């Protein structure tokens, strides 16, 4: 019996427990007992909870230990006697045998796997059966226990609500767990990486040419400065040169000049720019923008222009960021007190003078915060640079040359086989940690600026 089927059966049994417990509790009210504490449906939920939760928890635990039990039984059998003693080889054969027992058409490399497959089938189905039976037993036991506790004065609602509260808390904890998981996995692999490459070389080295070669416990070619420069050049310079003027001016126009009708239509259209998947932007940059820029560069006399230029990736990324900058600027301008604007207009300033000399200076902290958030988003952006920026780690300020970024290299290093002992795989985690820390800092600083500025006008 499969795990999925067991899950559904237990859910069904939970439903039955709910119906019976509710019906039994309902009789108290019909029989006219004066002080019934909880509504019948709460008794139902209480019974269903007892029937389902322990059984499901057991199944989850069982599904993690059952495969190991199955392997143990197979290894004990006489057929497994001839297996190689090397743990790694043996594990490969065993996993192949298990895959074969699920899918008989599979092609396998080890003949031993073919011999062991039937054993696996038997062992796995035996343990699946045992697990299912135990789960059903738990289900019945839990349901019966809850059923016996149904009495007019039993506080089923309190019990159910306590469980619900616990569930709510558990759901919130997942966010902490995810953050911890990110930080722990990045730091753990990065420490291993720094065992092979010195942090100093990684952070300040100028030569990025990663390879698997480890000489005297030290790997070379992991100087990440060209990557950091490429990331800053594309994400923080070129993209912002596009996004800040266009985003800011769009926000000013839409909030200060445009009629309500124009605003109603243009705002969603700009927001579509943010909703287009980045892989589409990347394809567009590589297919249309990059060749056009290259022929433009050649026509103005730059002969060594690359077809994967920093400019193409930066331009397209800037366009992607426009709605982000625009909405942040929009919020900041809206937060400036109306009295300041009215005062300026009353003094006879034109609209544009008011915007340039009153509104934008007053909103500047908010705008700066928004730009920092936009930068943090741009440097973490992956697909556009992977598809349009190229792989050559050049340390150049020529926008028509090819540069590479942190995210591009992470994708590059983890493509294909990922061997967690190779410095190349671990380097990706070190780059990831750098990216994580930088974006985190940018976000914290930006949110502080925005918050302090909001308080100034509140």
């Amino acid at each position, binding site marked *: 019996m499969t795990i999925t089927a067991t899950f559904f059966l237990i859910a069904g049994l939970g439903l039955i427990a709910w119906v019976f417990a509710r019906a039994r509790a309902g009789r108290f009210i019909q029989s006219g007992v004066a002080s019934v504490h909880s509504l019948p449906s709460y008794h139902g939920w209480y019974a269903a909870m007892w029937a389902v939760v322990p059984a499901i928890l057991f199944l989850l635990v069982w599904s993690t230990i059952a495969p190991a039990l199955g392997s143990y039984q197979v290894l004990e059998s006489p057929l497994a006697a001839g297996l190689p003693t090397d743990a790694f080889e043996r594990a490969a054969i065993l996993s192949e045998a298990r895959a074969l027992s699920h899918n008989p058409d599979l092609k396998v490399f080890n003949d031993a796997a073919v011999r062991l497959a039937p054993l696996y089938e038997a062992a796995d189905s035996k343990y699946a059966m045992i697990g299912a039976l135990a789960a059903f037993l738990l289900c019945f036991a839990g349901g019966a226990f809850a059923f016996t506790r149904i009495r007019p004065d039993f506080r089923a609602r309190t019990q159910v*609500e306590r469980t*619900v509260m616990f569930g*709510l808390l558990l*759901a*919130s904890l*997942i*966010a*902490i767990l*995810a*953050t911890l*998981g*990110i930080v722990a*996995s*990045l730091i*753990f692999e990065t420490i291993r990486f720094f065992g092979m490459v010195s942090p100093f070389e990684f952070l300040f080295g100028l030569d990025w040419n990663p390879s698997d070669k480890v000489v005297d416990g030290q790997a070379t070619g992991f100087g990440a400065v060209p990557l950091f420069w490429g990331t800053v050049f594309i994400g923080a310079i070129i993209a912002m040169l596009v996004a800040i003027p*266009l985003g800011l*001016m*769009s926000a000013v*126009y839409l909030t200060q*000049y*445009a009629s309500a009708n124009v605003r109603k239509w*243009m705002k969603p*259209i*700009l927001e579509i720019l943010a*909703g*287009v*998947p*980045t*892989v*589409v*932007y*990347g*394809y*567009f940059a*590589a297919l249309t923008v990059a060749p056009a820029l290259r022929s433009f560069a050649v026509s103005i006399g730059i002969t060594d222009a690359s077809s994967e230029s920093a400019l193409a990736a930066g331009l397209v990324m800037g366009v992607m960021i*426009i709605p982000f900058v625009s909405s942040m600027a929009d919020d900041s301008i809206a937060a400036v007190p109306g009295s300041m604007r009215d005062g300026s207009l009353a003094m006879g300033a*034109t*609209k*544009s*003078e008011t915007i*340039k000399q009153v509104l934008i200076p007053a909103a500047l902290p908010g705008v700066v915060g928004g730009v920092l*958030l936009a930068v*943090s988003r741009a440097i*973490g*952006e*992956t*697909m556009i640079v*992977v*598809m349009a920026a190229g792989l050559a780690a050049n340390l150049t300020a020529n926008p028509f040359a090819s540069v590479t970024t942190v*995210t591009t290299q*992470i*994708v590059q290093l*983890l493509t294909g086989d*990922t061997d967690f002992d190779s410095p190349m795989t671990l380097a*990706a985690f070190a780059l*990831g940690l750098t990216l*994580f820390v930088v*974006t985190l800092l940018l*976000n914290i600083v930006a*949110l502080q600026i925005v918050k302090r500025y909001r308080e100034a006008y509140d």
Partner: protein
Amino acid sequence: MTATPPTASPSSRKTDWMGDAMQRRIARRYAAERRFKFLGLAAVAVSSLFLAFLLVVMVGNGAKGFVTTEATLTIDLPAATGSISPDQLTGPQLSATMASIDVRRIFDQAVQAQYGEDGARYFASTAWTALRDQLVENPNLVMGETSFWLPTSSDIDRAAKDRSTPEAERDYAALTKAGEVRQSFNMQFLTGSDGTDPARVGIWGALKGSLITMVVTLFLAFPVGVLAAVYLEEYAPKNRFTDLIEVSINNLAAVPSIIFGLLGLAVFLQFLSMPRSAALVGGLTLALMTMPVIVIAARNAIKAVPPSIREAAMGVGASPIQVVFHHVLPLAIPGIMTGTIIGMARALGETAPLLMIGMRAFTTTPPDGLTDPATVLPVQIFLWSDEVNRGFVEKTSAAIIVLLVFLLTMNAIAVYLRNRFETRW
């Protein structure tokens, strides 16, 4: 009381508003005003023109991907197969029959008979699979001589739609003259899976992978996100621990998506040794990414429900849990749904984290379950964009059109929900 007459200070001059200098100054200021306004309009126009340009390029390239060029091939099937009966092409005998009649050989012989020795250049290298599929679909065809429409080679396909090599242009002209070529809607593109031959690839495999992944994401991220939002907004005490949860959620919302891919690789694949390339792992990774979006949207929606609702419910004796689950949540549902759909749309278009966990499997059959090797639509687009074969350009753009249609539909539903059900209190 004596009124003192206003005394003009000797230094102040009266402003001559009508004077030339002042008029010029005003004209200059108004010109600056117009320039500024024009700049703003230009910014909006440039942004929206870029969007229009992008869409036009994609639709222009992609529309061709939905059309296939086919050439006709007449095969005398009873002679070629040794008079098998239609029954042999149905049910359990199918695979045995297919092995014995060798469709590929029949195809090669028919092509040589009709188009000469090197006639194979007219057809896609996998055209024989199209022949096989047509036979399986309609076994009665084996009873007689039939003209099949089979996909042409990628070069001729491009000659029909655009420009191609001189030889292909010549071949296409010859085929057109003989009336042996036609263009038709490319059903295979919507029902097929990945492959090496652009004439026969389809997106159904990737789309199905996307759908399975999205289901996993929704089932994990939605309940967790809504429950966490309820806890933080309604019950969480003000203390350090709650602050920690809030900071974590806000951080997760700002972490670059590729970091989630690294998390998935290190935790789900390496530490928990889950299967590579599986929709299950992709869904888990995307759920972690989508959850904060849903939490933030749900918190805003819950916050928007006025306190009077809660007070009224408590006034008639509801418990704190009943207040939220019977009264506040139902009123917040439209806002929560809007946020969820937007978060799911973002997850649907996400590529980078899925590349990290190996969802770039080359699979020629759609995935059947949570643990099968799968790919998703954005990753398929990325993989096709890397192909050298020129025939993949239009397929990539066509896949982008399909993806954009899904995303725009989801966003439109979100906007509709917001406008239709959102209550202004």
